[in-house]
Structure formats: structure tokens, C-alpha cells
């Protein structure tokens, strides 16, 4: 196995030579790119990357430009997971057969997909890859909406969010279904490693990505990716929104090892925990929830987040 890249602190991290380029077409302030940079810079090993159709894909490989400084493939909306699984299988085959051009390398196989590509249309493909335990990493860039096509609801869209296919209106508070618990579903595949990450907590993210790269077998990562366009906030506030997501515990950071051993990796101090209301208030997609008739939803949100935090803590304590 290759040596893990040493990243003691941010200064040391900043000496990384990015393998993702600017002048891509992602919106100003897009968190996708911040996540991709943190992931790619977590290793010096060679990379074989895939992306499902979505914002990341359409903004980084529009002919005649590519923003990728590593081998990269896009096939369709649903199958970036299987694309890298296929590439990883070829790597194994050529290794056995002694036909690798650079046999001394230790490539990492990584697929990216949005929540639409992952929670919805590509769900089966990811499940297959996790079950077969390919030596690969699947990363969801979870912005809780089909952002690339203009903001339709996905099964990651949280309750009360106004999406274009579940718009808020005089008799509607928007999305009526609660967000799918993808982490639990993926962990239930008993994969060696699953983790939820956020780009504001870069050290936690890098640690988890490195852990994932060092893991032999399938790794699932769910990364919160605040979307300036669809969550409706000022592009400069992307990191502030990410802070609110992690510090309100709407998006808790934890890992699940071998399908059962749960560790909470970021635990804000009691006094630093942000009320869910504050997280919601910072986003245009929840604006209508602050009308009197829908305020009960905010209360329910808080209760749900609290209950989930208790659940995660119990899981962690139980060590099973």
C-alpha cells in the first residue's frame, strides 16, 4: 500500500498541487468544488475518477475543456459508481496479467454523484457496488435537490423545502417527505467504511477520505454541499451555511465502520449548537416556513434533529 500523504495542518495542506482546475462552469460559491479539492488533495496517489451526470459533470467537462488533471469518465446519470468499479476491475485484471503500464502506482478509484444521481436514479448501481465491495470510493455531493436541472426535488430534499416540483404555495409548504437516510442504508451493506463529511470541517473530511483510501473495499461518503442557487443564499456565505448545517446538527458528522461501529467525529459544545431555526432562516428555500401557519414545521424539524442526535449518540455508546 502507498504511504499516506502527511497533512498535519492547513499550511502543510496548502502545499498540495491541485488536480482540479478553475475556469470550470460551476456557480460562484459552489461547494462541490471545495469538496472535490479537499478529496483530491487528500492523496498524492494517482486517481481514476468518474462523475454522474449533474452539476459537477456538466460544469467540468464541456467540450473542448476539461477541468480534470487525472483520468476521468462520465457515462450517464446513474452509473458513475459502476464505471469506476469497471475501471477498478480492469486494474486488477491487468495487474494479475502483468500488463499495467506503470505497475508501481497505487491508484484510487473515486466516483462522484449528486444526491439525485445517488439517492434516486443511481441508487441501485451504488448499492450493487457497495454489496460487491469494489475497492472504490463513492462520494455524494449532497445539495438536497436536482440543482443541475433547475431545482426539482430529490429523495434527499428535506421536508418543508420549496423545490420546483414541490413548490411552496398558498396551500403547500413545499416538500412533504423527509430526507432519505442514505448513510444508514449504505452502512447496512456492511461496507468497511461510510462517513458523512462537510467541507467546512476540512480536517475531519481529509481524515475520513484518507481513511477511506487506506481501506480495502467499498467506501461511501456523503458530503453536504450547500447550493447557493437552489438553497438561495449569497455565494459568499457558502462556508457560513456549511457551518450552520454542521453546528445545528442538521448534518451531523460521523462515520460507520464495518456497518456497525458508529463514531461521531464532530461534537459541537452544547453552547455552540445552533438552533435549527437559524439554519433554516439563512436559506430562501425555507422562507415560507416562517409564516405563522407553518411554524410548527420548524418545531418538528428541531425535534427530528434532536432525536437523530440522541440516536447517533446511543449508537456510538452501544458500539454495536
Amino acid at each position: 500500500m502507498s504511504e499516506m500523504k502527511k497533512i498535519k495542518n492547513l499550511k502543510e495542506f496548502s502545499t498540495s498541487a491541485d488536480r482540479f482546475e478553475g475556469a470550470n462552469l460551476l456557480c460562484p460559491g459552489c461547494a462541490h468544488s471545495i469538496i472535490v479539492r479537499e478529496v483530491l488533495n487528500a492523496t498524492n496517489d494517482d486517481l481514476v475518477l468518474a462523475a454522474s451526470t449533474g452539476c459537477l459533470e456538466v460544469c467540468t467537462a464541456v467540450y473542448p475543456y476539461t477541468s480534470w488533471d487525472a483520468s476521468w469518465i462520465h457515462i450517464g446519470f446513474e452509473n458513475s459508481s459502476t464505471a469506476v468499479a469497471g475501471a477498478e476491475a480492469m486494474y486488477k485484471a491487468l495487474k494479475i496479467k502483468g500488463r499495467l503500464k506503470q505497475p508501481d502506482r497505487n491508484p484510487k478509484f473515486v466516483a462522484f454523484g449528486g444526491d439525485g444521481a445517488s439517492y434516486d436514479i443511481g441508487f441501485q448501481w451504488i448499492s450493487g457496488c457497495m454489496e460487491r465491495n469494489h475497492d472504490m470510493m463513492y462520494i455524494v455531493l449532497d445539495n438536497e435537490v436536482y440543482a443541475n436541472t433547475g431545482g426539482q426535488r430529490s429523495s434527499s430534499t428535506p421536508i418543508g423545502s420549496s423545490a420546483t416540483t414541490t413548490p411552496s404555495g398558498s396551500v403547500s409548504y413545499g416538500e412533504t417527505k423527509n430526507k432519505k437516510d442514505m448513510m444508514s442504508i449504505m452502512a447496512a451493506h456492511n461496507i468497511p467504511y461510510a462517513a458523512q463529511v462537510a467541507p467546512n470541517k476540512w480536517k475531519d473530511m481529509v481524515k475520513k477520505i484518507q481513511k477511506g483510501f487506506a481501506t480495502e473495499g467499498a467506501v461511501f461518503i456523503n458530503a453536504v454541499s450547500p447550493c447557493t442557487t437552489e438553497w438561495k443564499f449569497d455565494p459568499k456565505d457558502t462556508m457560513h451555511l456549511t457551518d450552520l448545517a454542521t453546528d445545528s446538527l442538521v448534518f451531523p458528522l460521523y462515520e460507520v465502520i464495518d456497518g456497525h461501529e458508529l463514531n461521531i467525529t464532530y461534537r459541537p459544545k452544547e453552547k455552540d449548537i445552533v438552533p435549527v431555526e437559524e439554519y433554516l432562516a439563512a436559506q430562501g428555500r425555507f422562507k415560507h416556513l416562517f409564516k405563522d401557519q407553518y411554524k410548527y414545521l420548524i418545531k418538528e424539524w428541531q425535534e427530528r434533529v434532536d432525536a437523530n442526535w440522541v440516536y447517533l449518540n446511543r449508537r456510538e455508546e452501544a458500539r454495536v
Partner: protein
Amino acid sequence: MANTGWDEFEIGAMLRTFEGEISDIATTLQEDRKYTQNSSFSASVADWRIEKPVFNKDYCIDCQFCWIYCPDISIISRDKKMIGIDMDHCKGCGICVEVCPTNPKSLLMFPEVADEEREIENWPAKEKKEK
């Protein structure tokens, strides 16, 4: 490339990032890489900007928050020091200014047309902490 005919492309619409061979991308800095015209590194999104960040190195503590949180690989850090902004790739989102922890900030947003030297001369003073 705009007027390229059907017979002038690589088959499969395949794109190459680098001219010739590159032995170890992850340890080769951008300035040492031979990008092709097909790398978006060779392109510019400068015309997306309405406002631009201006960097005042006098206050910078090289914390690298701007480097890590820049979505557009536009904070140029070398040898652990922030040395400038890649104005071809900066889209003017303003994240770098928001995450800058110094007082006064070492990065501030100004209209695209602003004169950088003048703005640095007139940089705001340290803010008193509100309690």
C-alpha cells in the same frame, strides 16, 4: 478550435489535459505543468466577476483558510504562503473574504473596475470587537 471540422477531432470526443507525458501530477505545481488548450486552466472566467477580491499581504497571517475554501483554485499559495489571486479563474464569489480571520481582513471585495493599489492604500483600519 472554433472552426474545427469533423475530421480534425480525436475519436470519442476524448480530451487530454497535458501535452505529452507527466510523471507525477500530484507533486507537480501548476506552473510546472504543460497544460493543453483543452484544460480549463487555459481558459478564463474573469468576465463572470462583478466584484473582485483584493489581497493586502500586510495583514495576512497565511492561515490558508482562503486557499482551502476557494472553490475556484484561485488562491495561489506556495511554500505555505498566500502569494496572490489567480484573476483568470476567480469568479468573485467572495468566500475568501468571508473566511479571512484577520482584523482588518487581508482580503476585501471591490468593484471589478476598482484600482487595486489605491484600495490597498485606503485599506480600512482594525475594527473594534463588538461585545
